[in-house]
């Protein structure tokens, strides 16, 4: 089901709407947010210079650092009294980034999430269990409001206490699961330990996964554990922009439809900062064109993708962004080679003899980098040769894909840490890293 009429607007109509909203937003931040005004003055651009959508590129970028420098409310465009909600990012490094919402912002957010839930197949008949951690994190409340707005039954179970989650799932006949991909795998694993087969004994038909990358390999692992017929879609967002609801996959799984009447996308070369032509791969930059609390202009997401303008079979006309390979933030540099943990994950999930959990450890010895990957042995064997063959197989596949050698450490099942939210797969022990 297509949720909103804006999703099927013609390109001309959409661009006219985007331009009007962009002009209004730029004017407002220029008037209300001193740090924007300063930035624009330094760049020699005024609100009236925005005549076409092309003029967007004249505006300066906003980065996460700008948000930190203006902590907590420096980039807000409304007085605190007009806000109804505050969220914040986890802030693992330095100060968290803080975002504020007016009532209109909450309504827009709800609308955007309802759209992506509809893309993923959700309807008012679903029982939706939200296994994201509630709290300052936007994921849980975002999906909660969007699905509730649809008329679905919400089970706000949050993350953790996995046995109880499974009990709710069974007893309430939950049909829709909201979780990170790694937690969805963990839930299935615990269910099996409890003697419950997620395919037969549970009723999950839809998985709306997010807040973490969903690789193709992870998607097929989801199907293996939860059944072939379930629809697993990934969706995209970040608290700086609003939370989940920026874009999502439809049932055709060919990229994520951007709610572009609210989020204007660009792709830039992260080094030169030049806007790239449609279809080219680069860093995603988003401008919030209908936001009151904290309307970010040209926010650098650090996510690498490309935009797809061809029409989608689902009937939506909104531009799609290709599913991500990884964040530039997650990228690790090993002996000068850029590696996304998702590339390693592909290899691990494709290896039958080991489980889906892993940890990448990076060390430096005599100025050279060493990568060790801890994996869990599933294959039962009485043969050293077979164990060595498993290690060699993984090592060789990684060498082909990454051009790097890694040490493969086999461990007993259930020894690696499990995650209930975003999984932390990389331990970088190199000095200065």
């Amino acid at each position, binding site marked *: 089901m297509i949720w909103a009429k804006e999703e099927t607007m013609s390109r001309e109509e959409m661009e006219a709407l985007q331009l009007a909203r962009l002009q209004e937003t730029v004017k407002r931040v220029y008037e209300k947010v001193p740090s924007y005004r300063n930035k624009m003055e330094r760049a020699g651009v005024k609100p009236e210079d925005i005549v076409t959508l092309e003029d967007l590129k004249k505006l300066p970028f906003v980065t996460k650092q700008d948000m930190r420098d203006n902590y907590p409310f420096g980039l807000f465009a409304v007085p605190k009294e007009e806000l109804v909600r505050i969220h914040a990012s986890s802030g693992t490094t330095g100060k968290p980034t803080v975002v504020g919402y007016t009532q209109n912002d909450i309504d827009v957010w709800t609308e955007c999430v309802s759209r992506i839930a509809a893309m993923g197949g959700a309807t008012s008949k679903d029982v939706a269990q939200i296994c994201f951690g509630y709290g300052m994190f936007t994921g849980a409340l975002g999906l909660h409001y969007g699905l509730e707005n649809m008329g679905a039954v919400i089970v706000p179970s949050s993350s953790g206490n996995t046995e109880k989650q499974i009990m709710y799932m069974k007893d309430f006949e939950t049909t829709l699961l909201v979780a990170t991909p790694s937690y969805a795998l963990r839930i299935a694993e615990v269910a099996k330990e409890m003697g419950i087969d997620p395919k037969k004994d549970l009723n999950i038909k839809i998985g709306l996964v997010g807040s973490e990358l969903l690789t193709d390999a992870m998607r097929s692992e989801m199907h293996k554990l939860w059944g072939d017929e379930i629809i697993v879609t990934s969706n995209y967002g970040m608290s700086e922009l609003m939370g989940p609801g920026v874009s999502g996959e439809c049932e055709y799984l060919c990229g994520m439809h951007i709610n572009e009447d609210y989020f204007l996308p660009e792709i830039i070369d992260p080094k030169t900062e030049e806007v790239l032509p449609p279809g080219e791969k680069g860093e995603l930059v988003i401008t919030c064109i209908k936001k009151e609390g904290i309307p970010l202009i040209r926010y650098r997401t650090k996510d690498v993708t490309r935009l797809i303008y061809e029409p989608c079979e689902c009937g939506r006309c909104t531009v799609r962004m290709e599913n991500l390979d990884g964040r530039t933030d997650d990228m690790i540099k090993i002996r000068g080679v850029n590696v996304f943990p998702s590339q390693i994950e592909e290899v691990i999930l494709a290896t039958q003899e080991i489980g889906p959990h892993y940890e990448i450890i990076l060390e430096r010895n005599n100025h050279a980098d060493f990568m060790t990957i801890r994996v869990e042995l599933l294959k*039962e064997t*009485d043969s*050293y040769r077979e164990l060595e063959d498993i290690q060699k197989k993984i090592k060789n596949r990684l060498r082909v894909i990454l051009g790097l050698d890694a040490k493969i450490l*086999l*461990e*007993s*099942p*259930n*020894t690696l840490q499990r995650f209930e939210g975003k999984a932390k797969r990389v331990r970088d022990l190199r000095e200065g890293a």
Partner: protein
Amino acid sequence: MFIKQLSVFIENREGRLEQVLEALKKNGVNIISLSLADTSDYGLLRLIVSDPEKGKQGLKEDGFSAMLTEVLAIKLSHRVGQLQELLNVICKAGINVEYMYALSTGKDDASIVIKTSDLPKAWELLKSEGVEAFTARDIAKIQ
């Protein structure tokens, strides 16, 4: 004529071996004999125990990767050259010995556990040489 050996994968890390032994103790499984080779990161602990099925179950419950493998436990006498003569028979038939270790039965004999590439054929050959093997029942009776 074969007996079941319990094979457990363990990381080469302090405490892991002890945890295996604890799981067996908890389940009242007695160890008759064991073999553990030294490798850098992990090892396969091979055990002859009083109740292999129960041992495997207990280890799995404690999160270990454990399996049962069929091996041959044969009785030897303390005579110079006996093992060499028997291996000669096996090798001539093109059978490879994968591993072998001593089995302590508590009696004054010299018994071994042996795993070969073709176990049924190896047993046929040994039997025709007059060799006796331990059955699972014999093993369970060893105190």
